[in-house]
């Protein structure tokens, strides 16, 4: 599997402060995703990227922005953190080299607490 790392692993921040989470991959995967995981909701897509500087919104994008200036890095920013953004955040990549592929490889997640 491709290497994918997220940082930080845990973070506590105050309401109203900006927060940036980082996802880094060591392979040349085109597609990268940010999900949030909440009890009773499973994982929901925040934003995704299909190339450098190419991003699009998911179903829960309000209050979040992303950037991808290099293939290997996909950043998620909470512009002004709120308590409703307390969650576990996962980054994922997907291979599209052949039709038989199609699973996600996930990072280890970031637990973010907004107080």
């Amino acid at each position, binding site marked *: 599997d491709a290497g994918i790392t997220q940082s930080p692993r845990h973070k506590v921040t105050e309401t109203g402060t900006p927060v940036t989470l980082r996802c880094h991959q060591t392979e040349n995967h085109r597609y990268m*995703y940010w999900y949030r995981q909440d009890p009773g909701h499973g994982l929901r897509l925040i934003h995704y990227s299909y190339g450098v500087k190419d991003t699009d919104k998911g179903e829960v994008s309000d209050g979040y922005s992303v950037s991808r200036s290099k293939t290997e890095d996909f950043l998620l920013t909470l512009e002004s953190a709120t308590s409703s953004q307390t969650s576990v955040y996962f980054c994922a990549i997907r291979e599209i080299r052949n039709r038989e592929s199609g699973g*996600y490889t996930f990072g280890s997640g970031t637990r973010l607490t907004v107080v």
Partner: protein
Amino acid sequence: AQTVTQSQPEMSVQEAETVTLSCTYDTSESDYYLFWYKQPPSRQMILVIRQEAYKQQNATENRFSVNFQKAAKSFSLKISDSQLGDAAMYFCAYRSAGNTGNQFYFGTGTSLTVIP
């Protein structure tokens, strides 16, 4: 948007026994992938098994197998000879087929407890 439903928030199984986790989905597409992911307390998401909709044969991976009923839009996971290490949250997921950036749709998860 596609929806994925896991109607069992919690399940338990005796060690060495068999358990089946349910998943249904709603889609108008004819070609897609279905997945089961396992999330142990470590939080890591681990792919357990995948099924291509165009394949009639049910996927199997060692002690894990699926019952894929395309017409009924059902995709259950059977775990045989359950082990303590199988205790985890299990998520069912759907993705459209094709070489695009289509997102995954996840169910809300089933928490599996394995009783020694």
